[in-house]
């Protein structure tokens, strides 16, 4: 074999603490190494061209690059060697940046370690075999989990691009959090007016199938060929028949049902349509509050429904959809702010969340847009906004910024003035984070034109004064003094967390999530939409806090990724998958039982039971190879022989 070794300087990233020349000299003595070089930047165009030239000139049939993490540039260099005529798997990478130069300061030790890593890579490469990908068909259909603004954007873009869309929404209507907002910053335009038309487009688009009031039950398969089981929760209303006329809700006697859509600022009926612009505009029975379902006595809605849509016997049902890609757009929920006992822990009626305040401001909310105190229905004079409740607070394990609270708080303060011109708003803030287009100008306007009083400091406690108002104990760190305000209404800008159920969905999709429960993107900067599972993409706040424009942008980005993938008729599999050496296999079936993907099946070969890998399903995780008692199951490109060669090289 004729191997070429390239020791990358990576500018000074590597060369600063590794003697690259010395590593190259040492590498020359490794078996089969016939050529070494020390490019400044191997990944740059001159570096790649030089590599191609060297392959031709020195008739190399294998290449080792010692540089950064394979996560960074393995794909790059595989394409380079392929252009020069080699099989892409006749290439190995030694990570001497993240594993050596960035973490060690001693040059001698670093140089030794780098040389050893190169030696390991060479040893492995000598055992490499050319591998060829198999191609398989793609189901050109996408499933989108979550019908908030990000999911809606993805759905419409994909559908407009000719891709059939299955949109799954947990609530009875799409629209997500944005549908609950009264107005949006920084333009103060009506949220329902800009989102509503998009929701209607979803309902009317011939390429979109909507499963509302449904959850993802199970996901199997792989990129291009996912099979998703969807649990359609029992609505107790046959949506085929329901016309959304609302008679059921008018007649329902159970009028004290908690109204989740209105963030529990009001009550609704046990059978109801969540809000006037709901998509789909269909009724749902809340089983916990329906008299017929809890006590077996009532039946009023069934009696009055003009189309006979009420079905008290309805059960959950499961539908299965075959799709090629999945977009997760599951959004967020507010954290449980009642941990703040110093703010009353939820016991004070006039200390409410910002989302509840949106419903009080909204003309489709429980008060018809009349701004009143929940406790006594009076108009508040002094309204205090408290930011960073459940954000940037290590003491409750939430160090992260929720990103959009500064802006909506400014908006809510502006709206307060518009609703009640005599009122005075105060905002307790730590920093005003307004980096978006026209954002800072907006917060300035809140102060300069609407007279909102901004006070820089956190709030230590809120308590009722016994006379109908609330004492807000804050501080003004710019003034250097404690500040107390008597408030009629206190609005908490409650921090966000990943929507409930996010972790369970992540496990079904086999994608990662961070400490706060948000889905992990494939690369923080360069792959913000992709996940580490091929064919699964992210959109909106489920990936991290962001505002509406950013969510919409990411929704479109995810759609573009889906359409790029579907632009090909066939996909190639990753050939780094398991194979079974039939001579060694004893047919014990342990590999079949341990495979998390169902990628191994039994096969009868000349009367003997053997294991066989389904190449398109195998993800190359390697569980079977470590489970097989015979060493029959092997992972291509990481065979026992290759790993032993690496170990031998290091321990020799």
């Amino acid at each position, binding site marked *: 074999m004729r191997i070429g070794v390239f020791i990358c300087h990576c500018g000074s990233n590597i060369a600063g603490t590794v003697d690259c020349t010395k590593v190259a000299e040492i590498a020359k003595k490794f078996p089969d190494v016939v050529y070494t070089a020390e490019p400044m930047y191997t990944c740059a165009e001159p570096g790649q061209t030089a590599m191609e030239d060297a392959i031709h000139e020195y008739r190399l049939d294998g290449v080792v690059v010692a540089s950064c993490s394979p996560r960074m540039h393995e794909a790059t260099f595989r394409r380079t060697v392929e252009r020069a005529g080699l099989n892409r798997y006749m290439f190995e990478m030694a990570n001497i940046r993240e594993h050596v130069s960035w973490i060690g300061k001693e040059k001698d030790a670093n140089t030794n370690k780098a040389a050893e890593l190169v030696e390991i890579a060479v040893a492995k490469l000598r055992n490499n075999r050319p591998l060829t990908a198999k191609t398989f068909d793609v189901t050109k259909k996408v499933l989108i989990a979550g019908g908030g603004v990000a999911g809606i954007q993805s759905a419409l873009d994909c559908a407009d691009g000719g891709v059939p869309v299955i949109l799954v929404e947990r609530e009875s209507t799409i629209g997500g959090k944005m549908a609950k907002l009264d107005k949006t910053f920084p333009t103060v335009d009506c949220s329902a007016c800009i989102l509503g038309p998009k929701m209607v487009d979803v309902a009317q688009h011939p390429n979109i199938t909507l499963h509302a009031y449904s959850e993802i039950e199970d996901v199997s398969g792989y990129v291009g060929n996912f099979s998703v089981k969807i649990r359609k929760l029992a609505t107790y209303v046959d949506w085929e028949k329901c016309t959304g006329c609302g008679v059921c809700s008018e007649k329902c006697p159970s009028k004290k049902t908690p109204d989740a859509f209105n963030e529990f600022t009001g009550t609704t009926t046990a059978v109801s349509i969540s809000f006037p612009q709901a998509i789909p505009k269909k009724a749902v029975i809340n089983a916990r509050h329906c008299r017929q379902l809890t006590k077996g006595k009532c039946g009023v809605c069934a009696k009055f429904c003009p189309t006979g849509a009420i079905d008290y016997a309805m059960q959950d049902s499961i539908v299965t959809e075959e799709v090629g890609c999945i977009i997760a757009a599951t959004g967020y929920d507010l954290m449980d702010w009642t941990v703040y006992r*110093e703010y009353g822990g939820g016991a004070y009626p006039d200390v409410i969340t910002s989302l509840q305040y949106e419903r009080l401001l909204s003309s489709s909310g429980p008060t018809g847009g009349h701004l009143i105190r929940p406790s006594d229905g009076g108009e508040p004079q002094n309204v205090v906004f408290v930011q*960073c409740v459940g954000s*940037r*607070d*290590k*003491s*409750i394990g939430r160090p992260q910024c929720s990103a959009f609270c500064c802006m909506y708080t400014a908006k809510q303060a502006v709206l307060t003035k518009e609703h009640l011109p005599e009122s005075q708003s105060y905002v307790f803030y*730590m920093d005003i984070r307004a980096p978006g287009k026209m954002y800072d100008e907006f917060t300035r306007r809140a102060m300069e034109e609407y007279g909102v009083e901004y006070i*820089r*400091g*956190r*709030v*230590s*406690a809120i308590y009722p004064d016994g006379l109908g108002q609330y004492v807000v*104990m*804050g*501080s*003004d*760190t710019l003034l*250097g*003094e*404690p*500040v107390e305000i008597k408030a009629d209404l206190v609005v908490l800008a409650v921090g966000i967390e990943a929507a409930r159920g996010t972790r369970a969905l992540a496990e079904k999709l086999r994608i990662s999530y961070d400490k706060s429960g948000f889905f992990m993107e494939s690369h923080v900067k360069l792959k913000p939409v992709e996940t580490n599972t091929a064919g699964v993409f992210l959109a909106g706040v489920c990936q991290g806090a962001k505002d509406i424009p950013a969510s919409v942008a990411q929704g479109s980005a995810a759609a573009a990724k889906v359409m790029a993938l579907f632009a090909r008729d066939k996909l190639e599999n990753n050939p780094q998958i398991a194979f079974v050496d039939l001579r060694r296999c004893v047919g014990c079936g342990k590999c079949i039982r341990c495979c998390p993907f169902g990628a191994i099946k039994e096969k009868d070969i000349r009367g003997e039971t053997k294991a066989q890998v389904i190449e398109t399903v195998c993800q190359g995780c390697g569980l079977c190879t470590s489970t097989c008692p015979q060493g029959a199951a092997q992972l291509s490109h990481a065979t026992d022989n290759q790993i032993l060669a690496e170990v031998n090289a290091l321990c020799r």
Partner: protein
Amino acid sequence: MSNITDIRLKRDAGFIAEVEAASGQKLSTCYQCGNCTAGCPAGFAYDKQVNRIMRGAQLGLKDDVLNSRAIWMCLSCFTCSLRCPNNIDVAAIMETLRHMARKKNMVSVRKVEKFWFSFLNTVRAFGRSWEIGTMALYMLRSLRVFTDIDLAPEALKKQKLPFKPYVVPNGGAGAVGRIFKRYRERADREGVRP
């Protein structure tokens, strides 16, 4: 100190390390949200608010912090520590600063310290504290003769204040006195103000 124009000149890195070691807190974790100031019940009696003290300590402005009135008026109620979003035990830092100031004889509110020693002197003498004795000693030290004189008739009428101290029997008072004696001797040995 008012004109801090060059922070580098005023910074005392050793002071930062000393405060951190004695209090067990990391000063750089403070992000100046002001929650400590917001909840401090004694803030109105401070010259510098708690977050200002924290900032001074963070920057290593030793004299600025140790000369403050605030560290003497702190009630040690732990409200700041309880509600700090960065889990800083602010009350422990205030107490550490008070100890440091005392040891260096930088006591900006003498009457508070005088009251403490008036109290402790009765403990040293009898093993237990004695209210009238504490009051008398404090009046003597602070020359504030009429302290709480308005309370006296009621307190005396209700027999709330015993005229005679209780002396811990069986050598107990002596044992307590020796604790104070050793404390004082050790402080002298270590060259700090007891």
